[in-house]
C-alpha cells in the first residue's frame, strides 16, 4: 500500500502523544473520573481517544486532491488498525521503559501509578498487549466509522456527543433534572453513567439526529418565510432570554459560582473584542484595565486601604473608576498609535506586567496593599433597599453581573453597526487607505482602547465587590491571554461568539484561577489553552461562531482569485492558493 509510510508516521505521532499524556500524569489524574461505569474512565477515553481520532486521519490517507477522500470503511479500518497497533506498540515500549528504569528523579510522573494507568490495571507485560490491542481497535474503529456514510457518521457523532455530555456534565444534569429517582437510576453511585443508560442515550441521540436532520434548516426557513419582519423571532428570543434568566435559580451554588465566572469573562471578552475584534489591535495587556477597575474600586470603597480612604459607595466608585479607565485607555493607546501590530502586542503586554509589578511593589504598598492586597471590600448596595449584593449570594450576583453583560453587549452591537464600527472595519482592512479616506485613525484607535478599558473596569469593579478582596495574583498575564483565547475561540468580532467562547472555555475547562465543569483538568487546562489556541489558529481562526466579515477576511486567500487584491504587508494570495471549489 502506498500509504503505508504515512500510516506508520501517524502511528508514531499517535504513540508519541499517548506517551506524552502519560508522562505528564494526565492519564492517572483523569482515571479518577469514571465516565461510564464500569469500564470507561476519562483517562481511558483520553488514552484511546488519540488513536481513534488519528484513525480517522489515517483512513483518509493521502487522498488524491482531484478525487477527494475515498470512503471505504474496511480500508479505513485496516489503516486505522495498523496505525493504532503501531501507536500501541510505541506506547507500550514507553511504558516498558518506565517500568524498568526509574526516571522519577527527573520526571516525577513516570512512576508505577502511570504504568498502572496506562495498562488498564493489568500491569506489565499483559497490560502492554492489552494496550497495543486496544489502541489498534480504537484506531480501527475510528477508521471504520470515518468510512461510513454521512448519515451513520452524523448519528455516531451525535451519540458520542450526547453520551459524553451526560457523563461529563453529570453535575449539571443532576442539578437540572431534579427528579432524584431518574438520576439515581442512570448514574452509578461511583460516578459515571450506567452502561445501559449510556447505550440508551446514545441510541436515542442517533435516532433523533437522523430522524430530524435537516429539520433545523427547513424549520428556520419556514420561520423566516412566515415572519418576514422578524418580530415573531424577536419575541421568541426574548422568551428564550427570559427562560435563561430563570436558569440560575435552578442551579446550585457551585454552578452559580461558575456562571458568575463565565459572565465575567463574557464581559471582558466583549471589551477585548472591541479592541481586537473590531479595531484589530492586539492588546495583550488587557488585564491592566481590569486591575484599574478592581483596585480602583478596592481603594475607593474599602475601609482598610491605607492612605487613600474615601470609603465611597460602590456606585460612586464605579463612576470614578470609569473615568480612571478612560484615562488609562488613552495612556496605553497613545504611545502605540503608530506601532506595528506585533510591537503593539508586546508593548501592551509590557504595560500589563508593569501595572502588576507596581501593584505588588513595596513602594506602592501604602496605597495598594502590596502582597497583602486590599480586603474588606463592601458589596454593592441597592438603593432604596436593604440589599447588598456581594459574593455571599451568588444568585443575586449573577443577575447583577448579567445586567452589565447586557449593557456591554448592547454597546458592542450598536457600535459595530454604526459609523464608528465602519471606521474600525475600514481601519482593520487597510489603515493607510482608511486614513486617506478621511477616517482619523488616531481617534478610532483611542476610542477602541477607551471603550475596551471601560468595559474591563466594569468587570474589575464587579470582581472586587464579589470577592471582597483583591490580590495581585488575580491580575497577571494569564488573565489577558485567557480573555484573548475566549475571543478567538468564540470568534473575533462576533458577539455571540464571545458568549460561546466563554461558555465553552471557562464553563468547561475553567478560568485561570478557578475550575470549570470538568474540574479534573486542573493544572492541565493551561496546557489545553495553549493547544486550543494553536489549533484554532491553524484550523479555524475565525472562531466557533464567526462574524461573517472576519470569516471573509481570514480566508480571503482562498476566496479571491486574482492578484489585484494583493496588498503589501497584509495577506497575499500570490502563492497560488486555489479557490475552494
Amino acid at each position: 500500500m502506498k500509504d503505508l509510510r504515512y500510516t506508520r508516521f501517524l502511528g508514531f505521532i499517535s504513540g508519541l502523544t499517548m506517551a506524552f499524556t502519560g508522562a505528564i500524569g494526565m492519564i492517572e489524574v483523569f482515571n479518577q473520573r469514571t465516565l461510564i461505569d464500569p469500564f470507561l474512565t476519562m483517562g481511558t477515553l483520553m488514552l484511546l481517544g488519540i488513536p481513534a481520532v488519528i484513525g480517522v486521519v489515517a483512513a483518509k490517507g493521502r487522498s488524491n486532491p482531484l478525487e477527494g477522500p475515498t470512503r471505504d470503511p474496511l480500508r479505513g479500518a485496516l489503516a486505522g488498525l495498523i496505525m493504532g497497533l503501531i501507536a500501541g506498540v510505541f506506547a507500550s515500549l514507553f511504558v516498558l521503559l518506565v517500568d524498568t528504569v526509574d526516571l522519577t528523579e527527573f520526571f516525577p510522573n513516570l512512576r508505577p501509578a502511570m504504568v498502572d494507568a496506562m495498562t488498564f490495571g493489568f500491569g506489565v507485560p499483559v497490560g502492554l498487549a492489552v494496550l497495543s490491542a486496544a489502541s489498534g481497535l480504537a484506531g480501527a474503529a475510528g477508521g471504520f466509522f470515518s468510512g461510513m456514510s454521512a448519515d451513520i457518521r452524523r448519528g455516531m457523532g451525535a451519540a458520542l456527543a450526547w453520551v459524553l455530555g451526560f457523563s461529563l456534565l453529570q453535575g449539571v444534569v443532576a442539578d437540572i433534572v431534579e427528579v432524584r429517582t431518574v438520576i439515581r437510576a442512570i448514574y452509578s453511585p461511583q460516578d459515571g453513567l450506567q452502561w445501559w443508560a449510556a447505550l440508551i442515550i446514545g441510541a436515542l441521540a442517533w435516532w433523533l439526529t437522523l430522524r430530524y436532520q435537516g429539520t433545523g434548516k427547513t424549520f428556520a426557513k419556514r420561520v423566516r418565510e412566515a415572519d418576514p419582519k422578524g418580530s415573531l423571532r424577536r419575541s421568541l428570543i426574548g422568551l428564550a432570554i427570559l427562560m435563561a434568566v430563570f436558569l440560575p435559580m435552578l442551579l446550585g451554588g457551585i454552578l452559580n459560582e461558575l456562571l458568575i465566572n463565565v459572565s465575567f469573562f463574557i464581559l471582558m471578552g466583549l471589551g477585548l473584542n472591541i479592541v481586537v475584534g473590531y479595531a484589530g489591535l492586539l492588546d495583550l495587556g488587557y488585564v491592566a484595565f481590569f486591575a484599574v477597575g478592581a483596585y480602583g474600586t478596592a481603594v475607593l470603597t474599602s475601609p482598610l486601604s491605607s492612605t487613600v480612604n474615601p470609603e465611597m459607595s460602590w456606585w460612586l466608585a464605579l463612576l470614578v473608576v470609569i473615568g480612571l479607565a478612560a484615562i488609562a485607555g488613552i495612556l496605553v493607546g497613545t504611545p502605540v498609535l503608530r506601532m506595528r501590530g506585533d510591537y503593539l502586542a508586546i508593548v501592551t503586554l509590557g504595560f500589563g506586567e508593569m501595572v502588576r509589578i507596581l501593584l505588588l511593589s513595596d513602594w506602592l504598598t501604602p496605597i495598594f496593599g502590596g502582597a497583602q492586597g486590599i480586603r474588606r471590600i463592601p458589596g454593592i448596595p441597592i438603593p432604596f433597599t436593604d440589599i447588598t449584593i456581594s459574593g455571599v449570594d451568588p444568585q443575586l450576583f449573577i443577575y447583577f453581573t448579567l445586567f452589565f453583560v447586557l449593557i456591554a453587549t448592547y454597546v458592542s452591537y450598536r457600535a459595530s453597526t454604526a459609523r464608528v464600527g465602519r471606521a474600525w472595519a475600514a481601519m482593520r482592512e487597510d489603515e493607510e487607505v482608511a486614513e486617506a479616506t478621511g477616517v482619523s485613525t488616531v481617534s478610532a484607535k483611542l476610542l477602541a482602547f477607551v471603550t475596551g478599558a471601560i468595559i474591563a473596569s466594569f468587570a474589575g469593579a464587579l470582581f472586587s465587590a464579589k470577592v471582597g478582596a483583591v490580590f495581585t495574583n488575580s491580575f497577571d498575564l494569564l488573565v489577558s491571554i485567557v480573555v484573548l483565547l475566549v475571543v478567538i475561540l468564540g470568534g473575533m468580532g462576533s458577539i455571540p461568539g464571545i458568549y460561546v467562547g466563554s461558555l465553552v472555555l471557562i464553563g468547561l475547562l475553567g478560568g485561570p484561577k478557578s475550575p470549570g465543569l470538568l474540574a479534573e483538568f486542573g493544572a492541565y487546562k493551561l496546557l489545553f489553552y495553549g493547544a486550543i489556541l494553536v489549533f484554532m489558529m491553524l484550523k479555524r481562526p475565525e472562531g466557533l461562531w464567526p462574524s461573517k466579515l472576519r470569516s471573509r477576511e481570514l480566508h480571503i486567500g482562498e476566496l479571491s482569485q486574482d492578484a489585484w487584491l494583493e496588498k503589501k504587508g497584509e495577506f497575499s494570495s500570490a502563492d497560488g492558493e486555489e479557490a475552494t471549489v
Partner: protein
Amino acid sequence: MALLEISGLSKAFGGVQALRGLDFHIDEGEIVSVIGPNGAGKTSFFNVISGIFSPDEGSIIFDGDDVTHHAPSEVTQRGIARTFQNVRLFANMTVLENVMVGQHCRTKAGILGAIFNTPSQRAEEEMIGEKAREILSFFGTRLAGYRLDQPAFALSYANRRRLEIARAMATEPRLLLLDEPTAGMNPRETIELTGKIGEMRDDRGLTVVVISHEMNVVEDVSDRVVVLDHGVKIAEGGYADVSTDDDVIEAYLGRPAESDDD
C-alpha cells in the same frame, strides 16, 4: 487664486530624490493631467499632497490654507480626495459600506450617539446611506441594486476602479486626485470613464488631477498637461504643445545617439 498652489516641493526617500523643487498650481474647475515616464515621481506627488508623506521642503496651499504637513485624514477633510494606482478597496466590506466610509469625515455621530440611538444619529445614518447611494448612481446602474450588498472583492476590475472613485467622491472633496484611473480597462470602459471625469467637473463642480499613461485619455480630458521627469516639472501646457515638446519626447523615448563623425 488657485485652488491648489504648490511651490518648491521636495521629497527624498533614502537615497532617491522623488520630488525636486516642484511647482504646481490648479484653478477651480480645471482638469489637469500629470504625465511622465516611470519613476518620474507622479505617485509620490500624490502621496505628498494627500499627506501620506511629509515633504522635506516646500509648501502646499489649498484654498488659502496651508496643508503641507497635515495628516491624511485632515487633508481629506479639507477637501482633497484621491484614488490609488493599485486599487485599494476595503475588500471585505460591501460596496455600499465602502462608500459610506467616505462620508466619515463629513459626519460626526460618535459612539455615544450610536449607543443611545439618538434621533440625530439615526438621521445621520440615513443621510449617509442616501448620499452613498446617490454617489454610486453617478456610475449609473453599474454599482446599484443588488451590487450594493456585495463584498467589494466580488466586483469586476473596472467596477472596483469605479467604486474607489465613488468612495473618494463620497468625501465631498473639492479636489480629486485620480492615480491612473483607466489602467487595465478595456477601450470601451476607458472611453466611458473619460467621459465621467468630464462629468465630474461639469456636473459636480470637482477639480481633477489625473495621472495617466494613456495619451488618448490625457488628450481627451485635460485642460492642461504637466510633465514630470525625475521629480521635476519639465513641461506644461496644452496637450498639443506638450506632446511635441522635445524635452518630453526625450524623457519618454531618449535621445538619438551621438554620431562619431560630424
